């Protein structure tokens, strides 16, 4: 492969011939510090094109960021122009990635990926460029929904729905509450009425330049590293079946549904561990008939082996089983840590929120003045009840 001048250079290791690095004893270490020929950025996308796309997107965002000093129509025009530029950048990126993949005969992502990605990126751009905080929060919900679609494409269905419930349903509602609590009396529809804090962006050009450098660096590093990712240590089927052996009752149910179990039969359990006796590699299942033995104890009085032809297609652990076992079996400490974090957050928020605060002196004086002028106004208008204040 011809290397582009801009590709990330690194030490290259030569693979011992006839041996994949997975079989190599130092495989893991090897893959962390460098790998074979196929791991430059231009394996995925040409770096110049990548930087071009990033610059285009940054320019679009810089155009769309809120500013003062234009009429409302001109401002709208800038926003739409920015949206068009960002969409063009997105389309260009999708086109380039797709062209590269098809030219090398690699698979492309599912077609559903593109609308979901467009929704999440477009909504997040709109979120940071909208002048009104409430709309920003609502656009963030759109972003969440877009990412949920991508989660489903990545076969993480549970996380997709959990994300909608927790983020869109709980966290964003909290944000909306605070936006409505902590905002001055609502202004009119005119953008001129908005305060500077919402209507003017701080250093838009500089920030977009930083964002451009950031996304360029992150993608270059990620695309450069993709080729070096260690391959999974076991196949998906093995991972699924390792969990499946711990769910004997689920196996019972699936076998029963497939019509493989006669009355009184069930999958055999290991005596010590209680795990289901299934062999995922040979695809065999041991089933047993329960009955009373000579001493009156319940035990297996007959066993049989189901061969691989009998193995039903539906006999696999789904995503939720695997996620649950992963969370509780492999990362139990995480639940404790999460509990402590949430407890601390709850305590902290309560302590912060119940503190009684006074307006500062200057603000108090300003408010008093405002109130005073308002009172003067009402006394002047006393003679004309129709022009009264609310």
């Amino acid at each position, binding site marked *: 492969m011809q290397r582009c001048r801009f590709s990330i250079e690194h030490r290259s290791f030569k693979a011992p011939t006839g041996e994949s690095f997975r079989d190599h004893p130092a495989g893991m270490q090897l893959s962390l510090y460098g790998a074979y020929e196929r791991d430059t950025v231009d394996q*995925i996308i040409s770096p110049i094109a990548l930087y071009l796309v*990033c610059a285009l*997107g*940054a320019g679009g965002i810089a155009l769309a960021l809120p500013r003062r000093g234009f009429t409302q129509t001109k401002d709208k025009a800038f926003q739409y122009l920015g949206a068009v530029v960002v969409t063009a950048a997105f389309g260009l990126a*999708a086109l380039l*990635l797709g062209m*590269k*993949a098809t030219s*090398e005969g*690699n*698979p492309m*992502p*599912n077609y559903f*990926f593109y609308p979901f990605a467009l929704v999440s990126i477009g909504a997040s751009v709109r979120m*940071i460029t909208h002048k009104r905080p409430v709309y920003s929060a609502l656009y*963030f919900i759109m972003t*969440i929904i877009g990412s949920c679609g*991508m*989660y*489903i494409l*990545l*076969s993480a*269905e549970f*996380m997709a729905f*959990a994300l909608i419930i927790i983020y869109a349903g*709980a*966290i964003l509602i*909290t*944000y909306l509450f*605070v*936006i409505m*609590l902590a905002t001055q009396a609502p202004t009119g529809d005119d953008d001129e009425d908005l*305060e500077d*804090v*919402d209507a003017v*962006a*701080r250093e838009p050009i500089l920030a977009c330049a*930083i964002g*451009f450098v*950031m*996304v360029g660096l*992150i*993608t270059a590093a990620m695309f450069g590293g*993709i080729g070096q*990712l260690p391959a*999974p240590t076991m196949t*998906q089927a093995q991972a*699924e079946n390792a969990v499946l052996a711990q769910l004997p009752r689920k196996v019972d149910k699936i076998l029963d549904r497939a019509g493989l179990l006669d009355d009184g039969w069930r999958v055999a359990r290991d005596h010590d561990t209680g795990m289901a006796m299934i062999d995922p590699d040979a695809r065999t299942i041991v089933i047993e008939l329960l009955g009373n033995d000579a001493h009156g104890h319940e035990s297996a009085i007959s066993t049989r082996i189901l061969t691989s032809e009998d193995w039903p297609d539906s006999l696999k652990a789904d995503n939720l089983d695997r996620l649950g*076992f*992963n*969370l509780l079996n492999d990362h139990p400490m995480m639940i404790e840590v*999460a509990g402590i*974090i949430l407890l601390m*957050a709850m305590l*902290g*928020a309560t302590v*912060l929120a119940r*503190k009684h605060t006074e*307006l*500062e002196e200057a603000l108090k004086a300003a408010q008093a003045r405002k109130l005073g002028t308002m009172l003067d106004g009402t006394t002047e208008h006393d003679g004309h009840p129709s022009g009264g204040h609310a």
Partner: protein
Amino acid sequence: MMHAFESLQLVQSGIAQLAYPSEMSNSVLAPYLFVSAAMFAIGLVGFLTRKNMIIMFLCTELMFQAAGLALIAFGRHHLGADGQTFVIFVLCVAAAEAAMALALVVLLFRHRESLSASAWKELNG
């Protein structure tokens, strides 16, 4: 119930990226990572440019989102459930952060009647 189960399986086999038990190739992983990086950068730009404190915290949530997407994509690539487990943790941290940050915003708003981050310039200690 049966119907729901069957349609769920249909969704899984129809929409899901590839046949479930297969590896995801690099050319499929790359676009997800690109979207994740772009979302992170957009969140960063928003955090740097906007003056409203609430929007700044929303932008940090956007960056959490981007990290979550990358985690799930990598998890799918490795055929493990670790990525999803970490996203649960990220959700937890995001919820805690939202609670704390919003309590802080309300407190600061009560002092100054302004959501501007620059109203608190003297806190630069």
